[in-house]
């Protein structure tokens, strides 16, 4: 069990995504990648606002939404703790898959694709795989 300092939030003010949603996404992302585990404590509201200079209500709203989704639980006077993980047995497969993807990215670059083309190609493949019910 880790206390508080397991995750540090950051804010992209140009993304157009509201700050509270950015906090929610970052927690979900960390849960999915296995960076946050059951029992871990999220930073306190005071810690987050002192770091990001954002309104405390923004953090409270994000934590409430995560609580509503059953991912964390608030223990009054103590803090907010992770109660569920989003990573599963598939987490073990992340490493090899990441390596393969990196190799593929290297190939794409050598073939002369720029960032935008790589992203477009990936998205297109991802979408057509979804349509075919493969992914």
């Amino acid at each position: 069990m880790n206390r508080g300092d397991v995750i540090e939030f950051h804010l992209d003010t140009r993304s157009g995504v509201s700050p509270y949603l950015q906090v929610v996404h970052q927690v979900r992302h960390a849960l999915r990648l296995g960076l946050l585990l059951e029992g871990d404590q999220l930073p306190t509201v005071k810690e987050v606002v002192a770091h990001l200079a954002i309104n405390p209500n923004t953090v409270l709203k994000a934590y409430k939404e995560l609580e509503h989704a059953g991912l964390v639980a608030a223990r009054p006077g103590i803090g907010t703790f992770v109660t569920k993980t989003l990573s599963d047995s598939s987490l073990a497969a992340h490493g090899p898959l990441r390596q393969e993807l990196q190799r593929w990215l290297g190939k794409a670059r050598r073939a002369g694709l720029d960032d935008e083309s790589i992203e477009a190609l990936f998205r297109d493949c991802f979408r057509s795989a979804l349509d075919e019910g493969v992914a």
Partner: protein
Amino acid sequence: MTAVLDTEGLTKRYGRRSALSDCTLSIPSGHVVGLVGPNGAGKTTLLHLAVGLLQPTSGTIEVLGSRPAESPAQLGRVGFVAQETPTYEALSVADHLNFGAWLNPSFDAEMAGRRIDELGLDLRQKAGHLSGGQRAQLALTLAIAKRPELLILDEPVAGLDPLARRAFLQYLMESVAEHELSVILSSHLVADLERVCDYLVVLVASHVQVVGEVEGLLASHYRLSGPRRDPSSLPSSQEVIESSHTERQSTMLVRIESPILDPAWTVEEVSLEDLVLAYMGRASDAGRVQRRSGRAFR
């Protein structure tokens, strides 16, 4: 719950010039309120009325349920940091802390001392030799150490560099989380407000243009773009705040209470900055039209 700021028809005139006109507001507690507007809009006038430095010409104002500055107790409940975060140049940091403790019965000297320590300020340093950022932090520390229920800040970060500005807002937000303060802060920098404020008041040319919780405001304003169209042909439930037109296309920022059903429009969400600028633009356009027609009559 008592409103932190409650005004009705509040007006302040200097001779024939109105600094604040017919301002009616009721701001609930527990918010960080951004008071936005161009320079000369009346922001400082409103804040000075709220702390009792000015008396209204007409209308009423109540702060935390009482008349501003009506009693020592009322003075103790409201913290105020004036524009440019003034300090006493010839006095040391320690003198400021002692002065604060002497003037405010509820002064939290221990907290103030700890904060000065965290900031790395030398207690013997004269305030006149502090940097702008350090001076602002000292003024904020004093205002927070008096443990007010409402903290009023007039353009606190306007003169600070980005790093000092961030540090100032970090400490302010930390204090809000810790002491559950309500805050009213004026600024003409919308980017800062976007992070820290959850309630907005837009003031232009002495008039309040729009008031409300940021979340609610963002959920009721949209940018519509589509084939060229006369703004007056929109349904009455859509108030046009800003519109621009090319030969073929119209783009409008509208306030709506119900969903947009017209399929001709592409509907986009707006940022707080877009929203503020739209209201400011509308108000200054109206001002120009008024002035122009005024001349025509003469």
